[in-house]
Structure formats: C-alpha cells, structure tokens
C-alpha cells in the first residue's frame, strides 16, 4: 500500500522539485556514482509541413539521430543493430487512439529500419489493441514501444509505461489509485525483458485533457520532437515534465496534471522498471531547441 501523500507534502517539496528539474535538464548526472538513465530529445520544426502533415524523410532522420546519440555510436545502422538482431521477431507496440495515434509515418520508419537489419517482414508486426492475439507478438523476442505523448485522464500521462496496458486481459483492473501499478504490466510474460527501445512521439503532444474522450485539439501543439530511451520510466519522467511545463506556459499558472502521474515513480520504487528521478536522468538534446521547455 502506498504511503499517505497530502497537498502539504507537495507544498513542502516545491523548492526541492524546482531544483531537481533544474539539475535534470543538464547533460550530466547529478551523482555519477548512482545508476542513471539516458534520454534523448530530438526536435526539428521541418518535420511538419505548413498543413501539419508529417514529412517522413525528416522524421526518419530525427529517429536515426536520436538512436545514434542514445547508444553513443556514430552510425544509425550500427545503433539499430545494437537494439535488434536480424534473428529477432519484433513487435512494434503502437497506439491507435483515434484522436492522437502513433503516426503511421513513424511506424513505417521503424519497420523500414528493421527490414534494413535483415528482419523478415513475416517477423515484424505493428499492433495495439490486438497484441495479445497477434502471432508475431506472441512469439516476439523484441519489442519496440512507440506512442504519442499526452495527458491521460486516469493515469496523469499516457506514456511508455502505460502503452503496454493492452498486454493484459483486464486493463481496467489497473485503474485504481490513478493507475499506480501500471509498472506491473511489464512483468507479464509477453513483455518481460523484451523491450529494446521506448519512443515517445512528441510531434504534436497533448498537454491538457478535456472533453468526452479527454481530447481537445486546442491543447496540442507542434513541438516537433521525439523522446527516446532504453528506460521507459525515464522517458515518461521527461515527458511528464514537458507536459507540466507546457501547461504552466499556456495557462500562465502552475496547473498540475489532472492526476499526479505517480505511476512513473511507483514503476521505479515498487517495480524496479527504471529511473524516475530527474536528477538521475541524463537528458541529451539534439536539433531545434527553441521553446523546448525542458
């Protein structure tokens, strides 16, 4: 059972949080002796054309640059080869949410790179709602986790951790306490130990939710970014900070996420899934940084 946390705890910690965010934005870990995580933010305003459509070539370049820096190598093919072998069976866990799905162009860019590694098309599948019955996902040896970054009504944010909810037969069983236990999903046999890359699509993230399906197009913006990490918790931690910062900028006041996205912290503390503490996340920023907010 999680401990009692009140408004007063947040009031008490406000100055410390501010400090933590400031430290987390740097290029070095606060304490190199403690284990940390690396997250790459890559942005390019040219990824969207004047009508808001994605330019696949620009997106592909962003993806390659991000993976290169994430793995610290000079060549994108080498980077992808470190993630996936030609013998792997690869499930690309996407997100089909009608209002803000994983862009088809991003799915295709990933598939193209997998094929380039020699993974046969019969051993690649892109899916969301049907992953449990999808034969490729059932025998997958590797997963690529890719979804848009957005606020989520019941979990605070919809990020990499939450994206695996479709791997369980009863998603609503994870709703209690603001979806605190989402990290447990990653222990499911279909998932455990298989994820090679986590990718938050922040091309047009949603920073505030409203309306019948928690979507209001006024609250998305052309951030033109991708957030990549081997650590889903670290990726979500960075994503949560980005959304919170955008809310503050947009509303002119500190308007927190509707639900505290404590499932991110619980994923670290209870499930050991990754790093949530911003001071232990090395955030590497590439490309266009105007209005990066983090």
């Amino acid at each position, binding site marked *: 059972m999680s401990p009692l946390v009140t408004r007063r705890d947040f009031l008490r910690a406000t100055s410390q949080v501010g400090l933590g965010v400031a430290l987390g934005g740097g290029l070095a870990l606060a304490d190199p002796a403690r284990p940390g995580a690396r997250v790459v933010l890559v942005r390019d305003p040219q990824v969207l054309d004047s009508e808001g459509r994605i330019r696949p070539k620009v997106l592909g370049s962003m993806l390659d640059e991000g993976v290169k820096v994430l793995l610290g190598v000079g060549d994108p093919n080498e980077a992808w080869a470190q993630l996936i072998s030609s013998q792997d069976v690869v499930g690309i866990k996407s997100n089909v949410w009608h209002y803000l799905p994983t862009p088809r162009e991003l799915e295709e860019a990933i598939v193209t790179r997998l094929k380039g590694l020699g993974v046969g098309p019969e051993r690649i599948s892109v899916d969301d709602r049907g992953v449990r019955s999808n034969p490729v996902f059932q025998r997958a040896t590797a997963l690529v986790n890719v979804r848009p970054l957005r606020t989520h009504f019941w*979990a605070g944010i919809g990020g990499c951790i939450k994206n695996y909810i479709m791997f369980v037969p009863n998603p609503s069983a994870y709703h209690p306490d603001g979806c605190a236990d989402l990290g447990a999903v990653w222990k499911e046999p279909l998932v455990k130990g298989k994820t090679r890359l986590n990718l938050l699509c922040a091309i047009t993230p949603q920073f505030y939710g409203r309306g019948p399906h928690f979507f209001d197009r006024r609250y998305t913006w052309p951030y033109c970014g991708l957030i990549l990490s081997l650590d889903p918790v670290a990726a979500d931690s960075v994503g949560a900070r980005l959304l919170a910062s955008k809310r503050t900028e947009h509303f002119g006041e500190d308007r927190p996420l509707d639900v505290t996205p404590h499932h991110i912290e619980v994923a670290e503390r209870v499930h050991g899934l990754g790093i949530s503490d911003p001071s232990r996340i090395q955030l590497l920023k590439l490309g266009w940084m105007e209005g990066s907010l983090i």
Partner: protein
Amino acid sequence: MPAGRDFLSFLWIFLGLVCFQAHGLLQAGAEQKGGGMAGPGLPEQVGQWRLEGQEESYNPETLFDYMDGAAELYLAYNFRSLKTARYSKGEGPRIVVELYEMASSEDAFGIFSFEREDKEVGVGQGSEMGGGILRFWKGRYFANLYGEEEVPETSILALGKALEALIQEQGRPPQLLALLPEPSQGLEPKSVRFFRNHVCLNQRFFIANKNILLLGPETGGVLALFSGPWGRVHLVMVQYPSQEKAGAAEASFRSAYMAEAGQKGRLRTEDGRWTGAVREGDIWVGVFGARSEEDLAEILDMVLGRIGKR
C-alpha cells in the same frame, strides 16, 4: 452573411426540427452494446445533418469499450447509460452526439461542472461551447457534441438545441450550491465543481492520495474558488448522509492533514498560507490558501453563516 442565406439556414433548421420531433416519436432501433436506455431519443435530422447508421448504446459494464480510461469519470458520477450517434451532411467531417443518462440531475450537473471552462451558450440547464465541443446538462442527462474534425460551431449548436428539446424533464442542481457565497462575495462561478469521490476532487484540487475525507457515492461535495481581499482561496464543502459520518470525516481530515493543529482546526501550511476546516452538522467545510489567519476566519464565518440559514 446575406439575408437570403440567413433565411435558408433558418429553413433548414426549421425543417430539421420537424424531422427530429417526428423521429422522437418513432424511435429507430439502436445497436445495443449491453443494453440501452429509455428516455429521449436522438434527432433523425437537423438542418442538413442527418443521423448516419444506427445509434449505439452502452451501459456501465460496456462503457470502457467506448472510451477506455475516461469511462472512470462517468462511472464516478453514477453513469447509467449512453446513446451515441454520428451525423453527416453526406460528405466532410461528421458530428458525434453523445447523450448520457446519469442517476440524478446532481450527477448530470456534476459531470458537466467537472470540466466547465468555456462560455455559456444557452442550451439546457447549463452549457458551454469551446474547442469545437458543446457540453450541456438537463434533467438527468448530460450531452457532448463535437466534430470529428473541424465543423462550424453553429451546426453543432443547432444539433444540441434539437437534442435538448427532446429532453422533457428539468433537474435540480446540487443543494450544496445554494450554500456557497454569492459572486458578489468573491465566488468565481465557473470554478464551481460538484464531485462525489476523492479522485475527482483531486483532479481539480489535490488534497491527498488517500480518501481522507471519506467520500463515496452517497456524499456530495463542491469545490469553488473565491477571490477577494484575502487573495484567491479554494473552498471545499462536503455533505454527508449523517452527522456521524461528517464527524468521522472531520476527524479523519484533521488526523491526516493537520494533526498539529489539534482542535483549533486551522494552521499555517508550508507555503505560508492558512488552511482551516470546520463542521456544521452533516456538512464539512475546508478553506485552503488564505493569506492570514484573520482572512481564513472571515471566509469560514461567511460560509458558516450561509449554512446556518439553510
């Protein structure tokens, strides 16, 4: 817009109203997803917008199929059933209409108030329109109308008014609202939100991750913002089914949130502001963020004065 086009628009809407009223009497069959609701139907046609395909219906067990996690919000407000349909002009984007039946008009008001932030547009007993979404409540019903993509707001509004006309009943907003101070006393009307559980309260004003106010389906609470010489404060008022339960909630809150305040019921929090809580019979009141202890006392007295007159 030329006068002739104004007249044509009027004619379309008039003809549409005639059509949907006929449809209201001759209900088309709805595709059932776990059982539908009795009560008002959806209009067949309004202006050039015609119902496409069949209505769909959902109940508390199947609502997750329709809206995933957001269903929790509706269930928290005692959701009973949903009718939904799409309207099109033959080409271009469609308008989605959702009509929710809640257990009571308090719940219908509650779900409406939870996300209210845009301008009132005069539909039902309370409404707003913004971002291409029309939301209104009337009786036990709450409605959402929105374009799947960009759709003129006038079209959504016409459809909303047609739907409202099919809802015959009037509802009563939560009685607690009458106990709130007046706008002239600093109340920000659009900030008023009715809630039943701590998760919904926390989404608008976080107090604690646990249910320290012992909220549940049989309690009703109001959250509101007040502005005045004291700055801007949050007021939380909860009505319990009995004085005993209100007393238990009072004790729970004091223990979990302000143990060091003792029986005084007020203290200065870590941000330098003041928080206080009092109980009057079956009603608990908390004020958060007052600039001084004197301001806090003034606000609490103002609220207690209203409660005492009920």
